[in-house]
């Protein structure tokens, strides 16, 4: 069943890709132009997506409800970490991310807090101070 879905997704993606390529035109001296290569790769992808839709072969097993919940929570943390790295600064955002992910992976709360509390400033000191990678210590919200 998942193969059929994947096939449909690939079919739609590749079809849209080929369709959009028609809009890319450019002038002289280039016999190929910017729209041919996308067609060379897009059309086989349309066909393969179609084939996967019609003749599926594999069915993925997704995680159970609690697994999906953990993955969803981790995803929120990862997106939040990406968005808040600059506003919160490296140390604070890393503390939250390491603690949150650690807890999701089954860390005992106190040891999780200790790990995050040591590693967040530790990574900052190691990479920013010792090795010279510029990282924002305090974010724009505090500065």
């Amino acid at each position, binding site marked *: 069943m998942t193969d059929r879905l994947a096939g449909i997704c690939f079919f739609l993606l*590749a079809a849209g890709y080929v369709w959009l390529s028609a809009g890319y035109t*450019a002038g002289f001296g280039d016999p190929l*132009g910017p729209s041919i290569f996308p067609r060379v*790769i897009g059309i086989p*992808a349309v066909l393969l997506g179609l084939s996967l839709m019609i003749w599926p*072969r594999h069915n993925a097993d997704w995680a159970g409800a609690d697994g999906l919940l953990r993955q969803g929570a981790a995803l929120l943390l990862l997106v939040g970490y990406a968005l808040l790295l600059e506003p919160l600064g490296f140390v604070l955002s890393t503390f939250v991310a390491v603690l949150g*992910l650690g807890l999701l992976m089954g860390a005992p709360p106190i*040891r999780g807090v200790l790990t995050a509390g040591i590693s*967040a400033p530790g990574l900052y000191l190691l990479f920013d101070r010792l090795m010279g990678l510029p990282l924002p210590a305090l974010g724009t919200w505090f500065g």
Partner: protein
Amino acid sequence: MEILSSLWAGFAVAALPINLALIVAGCFAGTLIGALPGLGPVNGVAILIPLTFAFGLNATSSMILLSAVYYGCMYGGRISSILLNIPGDEPAIMTTLDGYPMARKGQAADALAISGIASFIGATLATLGLTLFAPLLAKAAIYFGPADYFALYVMAFATIGGISGTDPRKTLLAALLGLMLGTVGLDPATGVARYTFGSFNLYDGFDPIVALVGLFAISEILFFLEQKAQDRQLIPKGRVFPRMSRVKEGLGASLRGSVIGFIAGILPGAGASLGAVMAYSFEKRLKDKGTFGTGDPRGVAAPEAGNNAASGGALIPMLTLGVPGSGTTAVMLAMLISLNIQPGPLLFERSPDLVWGLVAALYLANFVLLILNLPLIGIFTRVLGLPAWGLMPLVVAISYLGVYAITHAAFDLMVMVGFGILGFVLRKLDFSLVPVVLGLLLGLDMENNLRRALSISGGDFTVLLQSPIALLLYGITAVFLALTLWLSRRDSKAFAAKGGR
């Protein structure tokens, strides 16, 4: 002779203090990363690439560091296979078959020593092979024209899935997806913005490095959260010193495994996993008297020699043709391209320091790894006791700080997370990620070669089929595709017989 003098110059490069330090650090980090379940050479190298950029290492030093990590991972992968029955990385799966039974019989020290020496033999022979064969292949590849390169890329994409048994349509789709992602951004030849949807952030396209860290490191985190955390049971090492008599039993198997692994490594798309599988099954067919799978030293030596030799072999097509043979070498290629170094036959003439410095560094790395993995093995077995909840979040933090340090843009962190989700979903759906990476990396060059070939011929597409080299490459591609289709039809029938849909 020419090779010897080049190699001598290479040792002069590798022996610079900074490079020596990187070899030791890379070997240590690699063994560690390889030993940790869930992290392998691809993730390890992917996480480190942004850091090498941020530190401003030159191309030679970066390659030396990454290759030391790559070799180190291959050594380290066996440690958790033997002591935990959990392979540290994919190529180490075969080592669990006889390594874990040996450990359970109280022979963990023997198994670790045998596999350490087998790794050394495999990696050293492969480095020797690299020294001898890479310059030859580079010389042959100088005769490749644009049409031939286009054919070579077609072959690389068609064969990258190897004979792994996954649906070949998916491998091709993954490669095409990578190529499609690679066309995002300004078209370098005409300046037309393609598939950017008006976002200026996308004008430069997707940075392959950012994509790689997402695909391999971030998706691994999502994978890891699938199962509930479980305690790992470390087997006590038993006797401290290995017995030489047991070690000797594995020597012949190591030599045979090395040769098989090396050949498997050179083949595009096969990589270290196939090297280990082939070496193990060959040894089993040759020598098994019912002892394989119950803790036979030869069953430990063969796959370890095989996967280490394969990782050396996989460097050959990457350096000489610019077409990587495995996931990890694809990641290394990404780094070279980002440093404006185009691997390929001319690399040997233009950057002899890089090529030979790297080769010399690999010889040195093997000795460092032998020391780390025999007398100092205790450090790494202790690391296995560290809990995953402490280590995996640090992988995330290092990925973020590495990517942020090279791009300074929150947008790229989001791209990284996006590629992480993509990588996770693709792996769940049984798509391999290596073709995606290859497509993303080689797409631009593939298009350029197509353009060059067509502008020579004035737009006539038959130029693609006029060179004998190109025809040979298409021939190989066709044979390979026919073979994989035939193999996968057997799988498909088995799938239908199980009543699956």
